[in-house]
């Protein structure tokens, strides 16, 4: 019988990704209800020493496949490794970060396992029988739909980075580390990596920044906003409108088709607050909105709303700081 709450723990260059630790946090809460174990699946090359980190963040057992075929992410080797471990242990729940890796691997796996997959969940609940309730935004974020997968296992879900909270690490916690071996079908590896290039981001990582200065259509010139973001030791974020217009880079986009952020402060300048944008930032601790339109939807979620000209306010703030 399918059992335990599993997390696919994404690593890049041997570095555990934040979303994996966040998922271990929510997995811990789910496992509490069902009285099951939290199991981490770690796939990569030379990653065995990272297993302890996963234990500290909530895993009871870490299953590791360490193989040179997994040194870089390519779908088929990762799918084979994950499939082989899942078939062996039959998880009840499998959570995967909704990154460009997770959103590639998860659907491939779900089809191979012939089970359901719910994308980009923002909330996960479980009942005592182990039935998972996966809530996600639907219709561009206008509605929430709660999805279940009653008759197939594992119940699979991807979760956006920044949505769940990681636990404080407990380095005294005990956990089991199990090394798994895979019977590879190398003939299936048809995609060859010619090269892999890391890109430096021109803007600070908006998922990590504590404060975001976010700009939208109502801001005429982005440079003063960038300056303000620096002065506030934050990062520049933007709405889809400015990314589409080529004014800001895609790395800065917040919302349904961009990134989900939850900084300590989110200052929205000239952003009207389309539902797709709000879906990506409403969990921010403190939201300030500046807009000339007093009926802009952004004011419905702002802690501090100011009806004023955004470009002018940015200039005035730069003067004060």
């Amino acid at each position, binding site marked *: 019988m399918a059992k335990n709450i599993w997390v696919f723990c994404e690593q890049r260059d041997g570095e555990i990704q934040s979303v994996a630790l966040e998922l271990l946090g929510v997995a811990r809460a789910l496992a509490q209800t069902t009285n099951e174990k939290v199991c981490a699946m770690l796939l990569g090359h030379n990653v065995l020493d990272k297993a302890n980190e996963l234990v500290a963040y909530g895993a009871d057992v870490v299953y590791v496949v360490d193989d040179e075929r997994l040194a870089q992410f390519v779908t088929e080797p990762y799918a084979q490794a994950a499939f082989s471990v899942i078939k062996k242990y039959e998880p009840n729940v499998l959570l995967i970060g909704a990154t460009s890796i997770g959103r590639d691997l998860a659907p491939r796996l779900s089809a191979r396992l012939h*089970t359901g997959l719910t994308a980009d969940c923002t909330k996960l609940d479980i009942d005592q029988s182990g039935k998972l309730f996966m809530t996600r935004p639907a219709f561009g974020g206008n509605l929430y739909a709660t999805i279940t997968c009653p008759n197939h296992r594992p119940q699979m879900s991807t979760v956006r980075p920044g949505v769940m909270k990681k636990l404080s690490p407990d380095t005294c916690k005990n956990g089991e580390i199990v090394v798994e071996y895979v019977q590879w079908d190398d003939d299936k590896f048809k995609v060859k990596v010619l090269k892999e290039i890391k890109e430096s981001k021109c803007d600070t990582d908006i998922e990590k920044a504590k404060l975001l200065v976010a700009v939208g259509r109502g801001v005429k010139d982005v440079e003063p906003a960038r300056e303000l973001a620096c002065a506030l030791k934050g990062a520049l974020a933007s709405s889809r409108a400015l990314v589409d217009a080529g004014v800001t880079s895609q790395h800065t986009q917040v919302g349904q088709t961009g990134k989900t952020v939850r900084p300590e402060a989110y200052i929205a300048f000239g952003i009207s607050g389309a539902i797709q944008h709000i879906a990506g930032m409403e969990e921010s601790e403190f939201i*300030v909105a500046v807009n000339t339109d007093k009926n802009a939807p952004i004011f419905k979620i702002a802690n501090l709303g100011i009806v004023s000209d955004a470009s002018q306010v940015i200039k005035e703030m730069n003067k004060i700081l």
Partner: protein
Amino acid sequence: MKIAVCIKQVPNTTEIKIDPVTNTLKRDGVPSIINPDDKAALEAALNLKDKCGAQVVALTMGPQQAEKALREALAMGADEAYIMSDKAFAGSDTLATSTIIAAGLAKLNPDVIFCGRQAIDGDTAQVGPQIAEHLGIPQITYAAQIDYDQDRQALIVKRQFEDRYQMLEVSGKCLITVLSSLAKPRYMNVWDVVNQDLKEINVITRADIEVSSEHIGLGGSPTKVDSTAAKQFDKKIETFELDPTAAAQAIVDALKQRHLI
């Protein structure tokens, strides 16, 4: 080279508004469009057709009115169009949808399949990889650039990640999901607009494909919608009308108060 492009007709969600009184979607009069990522996938296929003489086939699954999306694809330069439409397909989740589309594609036997990365109405990005798995062919997602290397008879694809990119080579059959930034879709060609009327839209129904009824439609979908709820806003709101100087001071004060600066 025969390239099949999977396209989806979607409501233009950026134009969907909520009724502030009833808290429901106002969908009336919202126009349907070809999903933006899919349109970029079509453009990528048409680019290859221009360069190396590929045959481009557009396929969609949906109700009869989705034909409009195929008409547009033909007008952009696609050679053939197929619609998969049947009551038996209704209510399919992503896995069931991918099962149906994979069965349709198997009949067309393309060399390469292009899909958009994700659709703006569902945002799941699942159907492409699931089709690839059903067909047992490799996938490359998040494609930011696609070129054909004549000498090596292989596609060279730039695969985008959040913090890096890979240059990948794939020869033989494969499925590629395309980012909308890959290519700006061309306008419909006047000649093709006229000619598309003469082209037939081929219909593929339940009877034409070989799939188990247990794997399609609402009944064949592993995931079920348990409930839906309108979005609730519960933050405490304070809104002031201020001149820029006063506004700047108010924001700085509020940030200082919370020790954020």
